[in-house]
């Protein structure tokens, strides 16, 4: 599964967002994300496995717990792709705001 397939899922995006705040135990992720999306523990575990297998997260044992952390490299691949669109469309839409403001003013006259 490649980066785009991995990020195409909202549950996995939410897990990565949680991990952006720092390392977290698997049980904590399962409870938080499972609660938010109303999905079972095995379902969250499956998403964690996808993230791990695709290199988006790392995992290390800490006693009986398994601690997940985010891995930046695959995200950078996706971000570079999105950044192209962001730069172009960000500028375009900022200018469109001005055009629309002008159209609204004319309409009032």
């Amino acid at each position, binding site marked *: 599964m490649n980066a785009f397939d991995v990020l195409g899922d909202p549950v996995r995006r939410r897990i990565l967002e949680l991990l952006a705040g720092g390392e977290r135990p698997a049980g904590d992720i399962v409870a938080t994300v499972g609660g938010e999306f109303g999905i079972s523990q095995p379902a969250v575990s499956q998403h964690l496995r996808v993230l791990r297998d695709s290199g988006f997260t790392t995992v290390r044992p800490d006693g009986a717990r398994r601690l997940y952390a985010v891995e930046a490299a695959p*995200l950078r691949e996706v971000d570079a792709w999105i950044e192209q669109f962001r730069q172009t469309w960000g500028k375009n839409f900022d200018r469109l705001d001005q055009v629309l403001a002008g159209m*609204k003013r004319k309409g009032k006259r």
Partner: protein
Amino acid sequence: MSTLTMTPISDTEIRATRSFDAPRELVWEAMTSPTYLPQWMLGPDGWTMPVCEADVRPGGAWRYVWRKDDGTEMEMRGSYLEVDPPERFVATESWGEPWPETVNTGVLTEAGGVTTLTLTIRYPSTEARDAAAATGMESGAAISYDRLDAVLARAST
């Protein structure tokens, strides 16, 4: 100013969402009329759009030519597949060979005088997407680890 969110929604699609402080009839007109397109759809600074042709009806062709202040020109063209003003359009878009033709779907929804545009860009294949991504990686080589939080914030929207 409203925030632009962009996120991959499947292996071949990227989706942009942006709100505008205007009724959707105005947003539709600004997004489809050659009167207004050259005023905003210009990409990076330093470019103008001297040619803007748009036959906004199903099967109608569109063609934009941009010119940079140093004389460089770029052309993009495509055709409208679906047109349902002021709500929805589907159009193809291509820079020409060897670039892949994408299918872009724009949906406008209005609430309380604010119009939200949801623009979905679909690549014809994962190979085409990868080619575009490879170009993006070259231009984005300087992107640093620091921006990870911002990436995740966007990816989660």
